[in-house]
């Protein structure tokens, strides 16, 4: 398989007496693919990105780009020789240069005329051509972000790395910039690796996601994959709200603290299952369904387009997302009904 970027067992220690900050990380990125590394702060995702760029040296493992080895224990190609673009979290635009000069900065191999031409072309693409003579300080956050992207794109790198690209933007701008960036990357047929701690960002921008915990990549998959079929408690919790239960599985069915439930894959014995709040629904208790999972509504968060209920069951509680046409009140007796099979997790220690 000839993928664009192949990372194998990449490991980095900051202190050899402590566990590695990046621990045997392996993943691949295909041509024109946007790959997100998602994880909480301090999990090693930014360090991984800096290893890819060559700003840091790895201790073990290798990085290959288009079959060429960039990094392995006895070889380290300097960042300037890698042909990898980098977009920094705080953009790192050169304050002493104009927008145009910033974008032209990485084009020193071209002639003056070509440089100008290419820079203007890329500014056109990101819709910032009219700002070419401004200084970075005179731009808004979203504009700076786009110039930073243009600067990285201009020399036509093989791949672009983006470190928390949207974290410095306010909520409203973040959403639109996100779509904008995805559009630009796709339009220029560019591959990218971005790191983020924001699950919504990863889910909406990336083609595939690698979820990182304590220096390790614990799951890789499409956004739908990692969201609907998390492999561990950590992934299930990190990608949104979920319900976790202990269960006794036998085949495709299990007995859990919330009663009998279908499973997504056959299993046997003690397992932990996860079911997303939107995969549960509520029904009014009637004599016909009172044999199901009965409970009472503890709290109710009305959020406009949907409602989140916290339902007290026999000896646990669960979250249920319903649409706004299900008006239950606090204290109502309800029946919780699963709409989808629950996901069997790989964790072995049962929940407390």
């Amino acid at each position: 398989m000839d993928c664009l970027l192949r990372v194998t067992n990449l490991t980095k220690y900051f202190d050899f007496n402590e566990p590695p900050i990046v621990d045997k990380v392996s993943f691949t990125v295909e041509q024109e693919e946007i790959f997100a590394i998602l994880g909480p702060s301090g999990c090693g995702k930014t360090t991984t990105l800096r290893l890819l760029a060559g700003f840091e040296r790895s201790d073990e493992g290798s990085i290959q780009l288009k079959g060429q080895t960039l990094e392995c224990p006895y070889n380290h190609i300097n960042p300037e020789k890698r042909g990898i673009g980098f977009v920094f979290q705080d953009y790192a635009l050169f304050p002493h240069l104009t927008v145009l000069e910033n974008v032209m900065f990485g084009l020193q191999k071209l002639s003056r005329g070509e440089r100008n031409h290419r820079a203007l072309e890329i500014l056109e693409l990101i819709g910032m051509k009219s700002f070419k003579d401004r200084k970075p300080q005179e731009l808004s956050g979203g504009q700076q972000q786009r110039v930073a992207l243009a600067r990285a794109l201009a020399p036509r790198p093989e791949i672009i790395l983006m470190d928390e690209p949207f974290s410095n933007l306010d909520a409203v701008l973040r959403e639109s910039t996100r779509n904008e960036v995805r559009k630009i990357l796709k339009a220029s047929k560019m591959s990218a690796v971005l790191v983020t701690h924001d699950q919504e960002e990863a889910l909406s921008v990336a083609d595939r996601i690698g979820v990182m915990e304590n220096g390790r990549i614990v799951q890789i998959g499409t956004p739908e994959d990692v969201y609907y079929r998390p492999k561990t408690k950590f992934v299930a919790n990190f990608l949104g709200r979920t319900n976790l239960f202990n269960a006794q599985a036998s085949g495709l069915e299990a007995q859990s603290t919330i009663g009998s439930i279908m499973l997504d894959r056959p299993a046997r014995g003690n397992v932990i299952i996860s079911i997303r709040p939107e995969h549960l629904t509520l029904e009014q208790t009637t004599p016909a369904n009172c044999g199901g999972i009965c409970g009472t509504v503890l709290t109710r968060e009305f959020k406009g387009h949907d409602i989140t209920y916290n339902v007290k069951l026999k000896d646990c509680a669960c979250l249920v997302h319903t649409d706004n046409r299900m008006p239950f009140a606090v204290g109502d007796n309800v029946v919780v009904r699963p709409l989808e099979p629950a996901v069997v997790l790989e964790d072995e220690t049962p929940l407390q």
Partner: protein
Amino acid sequence: MRLPYFLRKLPPWYFLLPSVFIGLAVSIPLVYLIIRALGGDFSETTELLFRQRNLVLFWNTVSLTLGVVVVTTLVSYPLAWLSTRSDIPAKKFITMIGVLPLALPGYVVAYAILGLGGDNGTLAMVFGLEISRLTGYWGSLLAVSLYTFPYLFLNLRAGFLGLDPSTEEAARSLGYSSFQILRKVTIPQLRPSFLAGILIITLYVLGDFGAVSLMRFETLSYSLYIQYAASFDRIYAAIIALILISITVVVLVLEYKLLKGLLFYRAGTGTGRKMRESKLGKLRWISYGFVGAIILFSLIIPIFTILYWMAQGVSPAVWANLGDAIRSSVLVSAPAAVLSVLMAIPLAYIAVRFPSRTSNILQRFAYLGYATPPLALALAFIFFSLNVVPVLYQTFALLIFAYALHFLAEAIGPVRSSLYQASPKLEEAAMSLGMNRFKAFLKSTLPLLFNGIIVGASFVFLSAMKELPITFLLAPIGLDTLAVNVWSYSAEGMFAEAAPFALSILFFSVFFVGILFSREWKS
């Protein structure tokens, strides 16, 4: 196959090597000086070391230092308070009063005080007021205090401005009066600023040669010069230099011990609010008088004295010399400024981007060159050059090199603070765009250091221009800078002849101090 950790964190060689070179350039001559001083016959060395004369010199030096500390404290505290906390009008002007004496070299102040008194002094001739000429201890005390107090004033002023008003408000809410608050809350919190200012002043007093020599007050520094230049007793001069360096070390250690654990941080969160101004009330006229007295002593008297003597007629030969002197001064000061900035860049870069014990130690060497009394440093360079590289003895190269090393600390500060503002991400961005490390530094970081480089170079240029003792010991024969001229004529009592040179120095100084502080005020 992996490199040891400390090796991978090493700064690039083109910054590391110059830094190590600077460290060696400062320390080797000093080590050489110690070897020369102590390396002779043992009984002779002990005889020189325990001469009764040394006790007198030591006492003169210490008593002058203590006196200057007291006087500058009495001047700086009220002035700093007035310029930050009171409702006195024209605070900027008052701050300027506290800054401008930086432009006055000690020997010019001494010249002004000497030219004032006596039967042919300015006072006698203009006002018919005959007072005896102020010399010796009191003359030195006045002269040195006048040109050093700004160092304490600036530190205290920054301290006052940095204080958290809420601590004082808390004290007020607990029932303290204004005076009690000043004594129990404000002044204790200003101790780090006070100590920092006092340290610089102490180093200046220990190293001062120009003022004490004109005042004929024999401190260690002055005596070192006499032994070297008049008695040609190099070993005794080296012994005195050693005593001076020992005192400096004691002062530095003392300062370090006192400052340790004394750093007060603003404990709470949130931005500090602006401090309320105190009403001067009945103290108003006393304050005006106080500020007026400082203006009189630190500005009016020196300028008036110089102008008066200039009006007495200066021989045309002196005027002819003036151009030469200016040219000499600029010819040695400008390269020194450039060289010290070139040295400051790698040191500051390593300190900011590769903070470690090693880089800290390398940076200390720069301060060692600054703290070493100039005559001791110059003597160390003489010994070193005569024995190791005789070709360099009494050359422009050695003089410029010594200036640059001595004033390096003044260049590092501004370069370092502009480096702090340039994110290391910029260099990484340049590297990710295909530039190697060195080129990335040149293209992305260096342009941002421009401001710091200009400020640092100006400081060094100004200091080298005013410098006297190093010039005396190291200058090539026939090199007469402005400073040397002022001192030589004043030492002979030829005040009129000294005037044009003093005025030129004043002109350069005020010009540069003006530029430096207008830059600071803008930001």
